[in-house]
């Protein structure tokens, strides 16, 4: 089935990375990295701690400038702001302790030009609806993670960059991440996820694994 023909399909994007070299401080993380992620595909980044998975995600997100090589995203219009079509889920929560769960999420919906009517469904999907009016400072680590994941759902964006998406989550939360990823890919979105856990999507899904090694 062509994902482009399904309803509410996401705009098609392809990430093409060629000859990418990244350095963090003095340390060379990886060199000559090349891969492409076409629409509807999930790329799993594997490898030991400190090998550069997060740095790779950050450079795709445009936060860190690579030392050499290019990261091209095709499908962006001339007028589009680069970066306005992606979600970055890093290990930082990006939520304010003194705002309620709902306020936090509504803020990100506004900031990402998302849809405020998606806030409640996103909270329901991530299992936070019952504590929507609790201050985010009272959340547990897993719930904070769920709030960060809910951010992916309030604005439709074709590229998801996930850094350890299942960290701090319980078994049900891991299933949630898998369900969300599967739905995202079915709509023609793409995702790059750095992870130490196995993420097994149900069969027709396109999942590839890239293992980074120390040079």
């Amino acid at each position, binding site marked *: 089935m062509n994902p482009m023909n399904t309803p509410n399909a996401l705009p098609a994007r392809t990430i093409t990375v060629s000859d990418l070299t990244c350095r963090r401080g003095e340390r060379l993380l990886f060199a000559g990295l090349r891969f492409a992620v076409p629409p509807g595909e999930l790329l799993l980044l594997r490898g030991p701690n400190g090998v550069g998975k997060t740095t790779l995600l950050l450079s795709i*997100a*445009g*936060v*860190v*400038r690579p030392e050499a090589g290019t990261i091209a995203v095709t499908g962006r219009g001339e007028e589009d*702001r680069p*970066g*306005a079509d*992606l*979600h*970055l889920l*890093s*290990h*930082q*929560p*990006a*939520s*304010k302790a*003194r*705002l309620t769960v709902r*306020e936090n999420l*509504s*803020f*990100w919906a*506004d*900031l*990402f*030009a998302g849809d405020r009517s998606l806030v409640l469904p996103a909270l329901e999907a991530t299992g936070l609806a019952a504590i929507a009016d609790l201050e985010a400072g009272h959340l547990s680590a897993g719930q904070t993670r769920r709030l960060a994941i809910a951010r992916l759902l309030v604005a439709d964006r074709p590229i998801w960059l996930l850094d350890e998406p299942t960290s701090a989550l319980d078994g049900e939360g891991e299933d949630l991440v898998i369900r969300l990823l599967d739905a995202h890919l079915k709509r023609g979105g793409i995702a790059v996820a750095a992870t130490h856990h196995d993420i097994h999507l149900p069969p027709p899904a396109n999942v590839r694994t890239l293992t980074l090694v120390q040079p």
Partner: protein
Amino acid sequence: MRAFAAIIVRDLRLATRIGGEALTLVLFFVMIGVVVPFAIGPDSAQLGRLAPGIIWIAAFLSMLLGLDRLFRADEEDGSLRLFRHSTLPLEALVGAKLIAHWLLTAVPLIIASPILAVLLSMSMEDWLRAVLSLLIGTPALVGFGALGAAVTVSLRRGGLIAPVLILPLCVPVLIFGVGAIAGLGSAQAMVFLGAISLVTCAFSPLFAALALRAAED
């Protein structure tokens, strides 16, 4: 535009929630006004003469105190990084943060300025001019402060470096700010102050955003 408004609303909400620090600066500002007459002596003519300078020093120091929290909280919880993926450019979002910061640090001081005026036995006319000069001059302090805060955001203990960095930049604001309240040529000083503020407000979001981008790299 929604993102712009969202940042202002969020920052105001955060500062006014229980445990917010909005009142700390005002307290500091008033404290200086309370302490100065003890140090200088109760001669009201002399106090009145020094009052424009004291009111500006108090405003300047209180605004320096609040500087550190301008970007740090957003940097620490990762929000700043996500700001880059908004549909608005980072420059505009920094502009929104500066407006919120001005509303939270300068406006309360201006509202509290009558207390200082009474403590320092300022005349009514001088006080009105002080309010006007603070209104016109404090945006420049916020603008320069944003530069300092953005440059030092990646330093974990950069709290005191930012004020030291921007101190020389702020000296003209102090000179013209005080000049606009009293003395000869106060109208001209007010115009100069306005010019400094306008230029600073125009450029500081650009340079602050540049510094914030570089800080993450």
